[in-house]
């Protein structure tokens, strides 16, 4: 009996351990679906709390990952500091988004069980992305998160914009994942494997033998870049994002703009840095050009927006560009910078969108920048939080956003490559362009008087808690970044670049 248990422990249980957060998330997702029919329409809120407990349990279960590094399911899943770091980012985003959803769904009259189940499934998919050591597994994770997101985006089913967004996201997203799948197929065609580390050594051998990569592998990489570039929203695959982000229920936008980005960037790091490490000088240009386009498109388009939600959507495009700057460094420092940036980015972006979710009021009618006039005097704490997130997005010192940019630039400059220097200068100029539109919101909030006949509803406690966590985290990352930075460095080291 004992021996059998131990044997089980060593095999199946170990595999499960290394998938602990996903197991927990799926368990709670299914539980919510199962319980849902038995709960009266007026009491659906309790399902939200269940989802929150699920996400928190998953966050706690990351601890199990820490204790069981290694690979699971014959090398399909890889548990290392890198995966742990990304899991934490994703799950924190999920917790914040769920906290922000509870009252939002009540307000919009769409409080339903599926919503929370879908959120948990989506997050589980992202978790798989973060830990995938094999391309088809990654594809499964990608699909899991994507399909759930398509539904979530259209969750305000009476709102036309939400429907449109969902449809758009579904059509384009399916194309993107198809590209990704084609890419995998081609990589498999060249290397005969889909395992990331095996692809790495196969490609290295080919390069050592033939002196260069075969065209098919390059095409495969290009297609993978299209698929993943769509997910992290970098130019030229960014076109859908503003519409989708604008149409989706705002807490969903908060989740969508943060967690999948983190998970997909993690996968991109594994694919580009590890599997295609031998083609670094090739994909460098793709990343470089994409970074420049992403930053300029994101920032310039955000300049002219009058809708806060849309402006934040463009801003998150711009931020993907800054992350690409660190990505282009192609070094351990670069990977660490990407991770740190993602941690800071998730907090400030989720925080900002949650403020928008609240300030939008019923039906998300108050989304114009002008609607924020006088918020500084009407709801000083909310306005202060929003300002903090905006200043962090802008990159002001003492916030996480600044250090994210700082480490990104630092990593890029360490290479001493003149093109990287140029990229950093472009990024720097872009962050000044960005300053204009972030500050504009602050101008309206504080320097302009609001209309007297409008009183915003008070901030719900759950939202307040979420905002507090996001704000405190943003400041913490900005002032005492050492623990997280060391964690990110350890995570990057566990990628074991060659």
């Amino acid at each position, binding site marked *: 009996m004992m021996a059998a248990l131990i044997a089980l422990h060593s095999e199946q249980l170990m595999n499960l351990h290394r998938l602990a957060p996903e197991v927990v998330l799926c368990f709670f997702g299914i539980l919510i679906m199962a319980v849902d029919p038995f709960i009266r329409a007026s009491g659906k809120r309790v399902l939200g709390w269940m989802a929150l407990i699920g996400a928190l349990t998953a966050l706690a279960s990351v601890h199990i990952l820490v204790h069981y590094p290694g690979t699971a399911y014959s090398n399909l899943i890889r548990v290392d500091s890198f995966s742990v770091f990304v899991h934490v980012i994703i799950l924190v985003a999920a917790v914040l988004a769920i906290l922000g959803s509870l009252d939002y769904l009540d307000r919009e009259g769409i409080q339903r069980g599926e919503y929370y189940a879908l959120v948990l499934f989506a997050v589980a998919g992202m978790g798989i992305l973060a830990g995938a050591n094999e391309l088809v597994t990654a594809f499964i994770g990608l699909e899991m998160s994507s399909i759930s997101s398509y539904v979530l985006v259209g969750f305000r089913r009476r709102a036309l914009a939400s429907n449109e967004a969902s449809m758009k996201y579904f059509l384009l997203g399916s194309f993107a994942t198809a590209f990704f799948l084609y890419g995998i197929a081609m990589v498999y065609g060249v290397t005969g494997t889909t395992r990331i580390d095996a692809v790495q050594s196969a490609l290295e051998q080919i390069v050592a033998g033939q002196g260069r990569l075969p065209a098919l592998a390059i095409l495969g990489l290009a297609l993978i870049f299209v698929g993943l570039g769509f997910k992290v929203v970098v130019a030229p695959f960014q076109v859908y994002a503003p519409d989708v982000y604008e149409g989706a229920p705002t807490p969903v936008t908060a989740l969508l703009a943060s967690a999948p980005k983190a998970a997909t960037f993690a996968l991109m790091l594994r694919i580009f840095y590890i599997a295609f490490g031998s083609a670094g000088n090739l994909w460098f240009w793709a990343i470089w050009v994409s970074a420049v386009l992403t930053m300029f498109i994101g920032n310039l388009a955000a300049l002219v927006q009058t809708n806060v939600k849309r402006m934040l959507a463009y801003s998150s495009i711009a931020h993907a560009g800054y992350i690409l700057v660190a990505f282009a460094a192609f070094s351990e420092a670069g990977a660490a910078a990407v991770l740190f940036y993602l941690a800071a980015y998730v907090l400030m972006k989720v925080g900002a969108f949650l403020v928008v979710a609240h300030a939008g009021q019923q039906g998300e009618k108050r989304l114009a920048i002008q609607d924020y006039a006088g918020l500084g005097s009407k709801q000083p704490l909310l306005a202060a939080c929003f300002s903090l997130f905006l200043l962090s997005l802008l990159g002001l*010192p003492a916030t996480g956003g600044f250090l994210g940019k700082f480490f990104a*630039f*630092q990593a890029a*400059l360490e290479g001493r490559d003149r093109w990287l220097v140029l990229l950093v*200068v472009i990024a720097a100029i872009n*962050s000044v362009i960005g300053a204009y539109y972030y500050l504009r919101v602050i101008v309206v909030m*504080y*320097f302009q008087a609001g209309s007297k006949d409008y009183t915003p509803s008070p901030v719900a406690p759950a939202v307040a808690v979420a905002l507090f966590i996001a704000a405190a985290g943003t400041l913490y990352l900005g002032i005492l970044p050492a623990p997280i*930075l060391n964690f990110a460095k350890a995570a990057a080291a566990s990628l074991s670049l060659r």
Partner: protein
Amino acid sequence: MGTQSHLLTVITFLPLLSVAALLLLRSDDHVWIRRIALAASLAEFVVSLLLLPGFSAATAKYQFQEYHGWIGDAIHYHLGVDGISLFLVLLTTFLTPLAILCSWESIRENVKGFFIALLVIETAMIGVFVSLDLFLFFVFWELTLIPMYFMIGMWGHERRIYAAVKFILYTMFGSILMLVAILWLYGRAGTFDLPEIQGMLQSGQIAFSPRTEMLMFLAFFLAFAIKVPLFPLHTWLPDAHTEAPTAGSVILAGVMLKLGTYGILRFCLPLFPASAHRAAPTIAVLAIIGIVYGALVATVQHDLKRLVAYTSVSHLGFVVLGIFAFNTISIQGAIYQMLNHGVSTGALFLGVGMLYDRRHTHEIKEYGGLATPMPVLMSFFLFIALSSLALPPLNGFVGEFLILIGTFQNHHAWASWATSGAVLSAIYLLWAYQRVALGEVTVEKNKTLADASTRERVILATMALAIIFMGVASPLFTRRMEVSTNAMLEQMKDQMGAAQEASRPAALPCLSPAQRAAVIQTQAPGQPALATVPERQVAP
């Protein structure tokens, strides 16, 4: 690093601590908010005076140093003052209580927020002056912007939003390129610690090609030149100064502009001496244009506050000129002029603010003959104006004189052109005084204006005392600056020497082959090792 004193940390963060106290008060408890803000800033001034007895004028080393690890191995919490920064810290702590006093009655809306902003700016500005770590410096540098942005945008005059946005975008654009340069410097030196980097540069451990050095110099200089502001980059200044509330203008003109000139002295010159020398003629020309242009434009202003704002362009031109004359006397003069300008222009803005409190206009033609209804205020105004136009034996004279004398030793032409600015300043200030104070009272409303209240008398008298004190007791100040200034000039010479040495690999047998390769690599092919500096530009 020897025994550590925590005095600088206390001075830097005391205002922030008092912000915490202010946060605990109810927002409509205006009386106590004002009292606590004032008490905190006065306490801050007293504490900062403790720097004086402990400060040794005999050494050029940074004093009161504090050194702790912060982020990773490269970023440290490193503070210290030397003869260059010491008095700038004192200037900041001196002006802040006066800024609080002058806002006593004029700020009525969101009083709490206003004083919080003011105290946060104080922390940030002191932080800039005492940081010896480039990262820390940059953090404080950027932190000065946001509270000032709010101060202009929330409590300013009609076009405040335009002015606030212009102010912050201009400054941010400059500083972001400086950040890139800081990171690049770190990429070479592996640390953000200023003294360490200086040591490496001096010993030739790291060296840059002339082109790289010039680019880095320009990246730093642009940030500082915008802040100063140097001539073509000055356009944000009149708007920001005019639209800011009085306290904002006092802080902006009194201290914030000096962040720029201080940055030039602390970073541009010691880190990139060869480029500083190469760029000096161009910069001097811009400074001289700024002196003359600022003065001419000030002369024709019909808005009193804008007039005072343009005098800053002119006066700061003197400071930049003094710095780039690379002469002990001129640089001491420049530092002294930074202090003088802080006091005199701060006082001018205070006076203008008092007029504004009474009449809510800055138009000169709305005034006239004010000496009759308010003799005390106008006498002070004249006195301050005289200090600003550098009448001996008041403070302005000492600074301008030192700058001109020092500059004249190296560059006759520069000094003669700059002197015209000194003449013009007499014209615009006295003419402004004449139009505001002398003659008949032309506007009916002005006949009944109240003279300076007790609070205003205290402010103005304090300023006047400072003006006299700095005029007659200047050696007390310059004595403490001298060693640091000399050391900086010496070090610049050494460093250019070291760089020239390093550029001849054969002459450096002590370098390892790898190091030598690195040194050679930093030079662009076909270029001379380092631009040789014409003899006459080197300080004696």
